[in-house]
């Protein structure tokens, strides 16, 4: 069997008679980072700066009413009708349905690919890099954040974390099959090192921070 053969070769190379199955975990401390000392307001501001720095558009609103208004404005600006939107069918986005019942909430890939905007809820907003961490699940489809040309995500203060490490601490032990970290729009520099936005994923990424979920 190839598995035995490979593990046997590894054990032999490492000077053991049989493959080992246990080890002590490695102990270390991470070097200090600028982000370590930020308070909540500082963390949100760091997120905003990082997110804007990678061509994201950031909006901050007080509550869901304002969030819905902001979404309406975004639809207008980008010339999108509610039925041209796909969104996650998660309880966090419930207020959205009341206003826009036409939004597609299923996870069919073909249908989602034909939509103009995908709307998701961010499970971890990472301040250090302006990254959105999205857990996939039965109601939180993977395609929503990558197939349409525009991706809009919402989050509140509970989702805000300082670093990728903190996001892993919080989300890593959850029962998921896919965890996607998204940092700005899809990009490439493959032709003459010329930066182009929007290759296979969205060219536009927007975030609405909702201060108070109510």
């Amino acid at each position, binding site marked *: 069997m190839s598995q035995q053969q490979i593990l046997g070769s590894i054990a032999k190379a490492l000077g053991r008679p049989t493959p080992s199955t246990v080890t002590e975990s490695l102990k270390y401390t991470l070097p200090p980072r600028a982000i370590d000392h930020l308070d909540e307001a500082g963390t949100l501001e760091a997120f905003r700066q990082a997110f804007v720095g990678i061509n994201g558009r950031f909006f901050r609103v007080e509550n869901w009413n304002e969030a819905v208004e902001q979404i309406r404005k975004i639809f207008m600006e980008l010339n999108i009708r509610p039925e041209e939107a796909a969104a996650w069918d998660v309880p966090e986005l419930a207020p959205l349905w009341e206003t826009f019942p036409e939004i597609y909430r299923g996870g069919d890939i073909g249908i989602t690919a034909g939509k103009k905007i995908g709307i998701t809820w961010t499970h971890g907003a990472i301040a250090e890099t302006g990254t959105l961490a999205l857990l996939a699940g039965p109601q939180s*489809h993977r395609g929503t954040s990558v197939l349409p040309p525009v991706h809009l995500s919402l989050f509140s203060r509970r989702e805000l974390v300082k670093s990728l490490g903190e996001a892993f601490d919080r989300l890593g032990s959850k029962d998921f099959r896919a965890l*996607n970290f998204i940092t700005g729009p899809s990009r490439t520099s493959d*032709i003459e090192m010329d930066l182009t936005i929007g290759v296979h994923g969205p060219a536009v990424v927007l975030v609405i921070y909702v201060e108070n979920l109510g």
Partner: protein
Amino acid sequence: MAAGNRDLQGRIQSAFRHPFLRKAVKSATNTLRDRKNVVTHDLGHWEDWRNLGMQIRNHVIENLDTYLQQFAKNMLQQGAQVHWAVTAEDALRIFQGIVDKHKAKLVLKSKSMVSEELHVNHVLEDRGIHAVESDLGEYIIQLAGETPSHIIVPAIHKTRQEVADLFEKDSGQKQQPDTASLTRYARQKLRQMFLDAPIGVSGCNFAVADPGAVALFTNEGNGRLVTSVPPVHVVFMGLERIVPTFRELDVMAKLLPRSATGQKITSYMSVIRGPKGPGEQDGAQEMHIIIVDNGRTRILANPKYQEVLRCIRCGSCLNVCPVYRQVGGHTYGWVYSGPIGAVLTPLLQNDLINWGETAYLTTLCGACTEACPTKIPLHEMLIQLRLERTVSGATSSLERTAFRLWSETWGNPTLYKLSMKGGYIGQKPFMKEGHLEGGPTPLSAWTNSRYFPPIAKETFRDRWRKGEI
């Protein structure tokens, strides 16, 4: 093992003849290197991060059997199928079995160096199966029928116009040679393929042992599509690409994008733990992981080169290498280029005679070692490879005799003095404008292509004796 172009001189000459390559490679490597300097400076404590990277990768290598078993067990539990391939042929046979089972005629790939190493595309094409690279740069070189000229930006030697010509041929329609239009064309063309392909193939930047997961770093989003749109997802994974937990993945996420493209993090990092879960509407129904040895355990068993398994394929060593910057990736003859390619190619091919010459594509300046985020002593390995190649008798007898004579002469003070005097007189017919030109072979191999400073009338030793120095 796999084919490649073994004629080093021919490869070098064709790199020099290429109208655009040297300029493009130089400017790309400058950009990548400079961006890396900025982001590593911004992060701070870069040396500490590098040390940590080295420590983690060493720990993994020393416990590879444990972590691989953990990873495989966890992935199996989460519903993935795990395959083990000792050789390239094994890996291809396993993959072929999956393709046949699904009667796939189209396979969509995101970038995977291991699959390039195995020449997966050729094997599929031979059987009438269309394997399409979805990374823009890889797609371009696939249309051109070439290999990557850089690990991170594979089509850097292609001009916009050349890309437009390739896309024109591909589509049968006129294409504008501007980056935005060309990118749009690739997006549209490949999007349909993503939706149609029954199988998606990806590499594996890192496998996480506990809990089992495969992590992919991409910028374009093709990595996300390949792993979640087609019903079957196949991962090619080099067996050393493992980290113990998410904590170590976090450290790698600090090192890899910064070293590779000078980004704090890539646009996408996907962490996949198996096929889609119960109730999920998208995601692959079937996930296969092919763990590939293909010479890696042989490297593990050799203490002189074991450390090369720390490599995270960031391409940083390419960007600072004075030789790579002149000749580009094709000169290395196979899929891996630059200093890492010069070391890895002969080791993976297990052939010092035909492939060991890559160890001469270096000035031994050590810039690669200094750039490497996991501190692999690349330049020392290059010296070691040269040594082993010479000892194995791969170098020509003329070269060996010449070096033996040289070492005997210069090892003896009287003979050394005599040789300098003789050299001073002997060089006179070849002096031109203060440097040497032409001369007998093998000297002319050097003097015909670059300046060789002449031997001074008065030697250092003479001047030292006179108290002039």
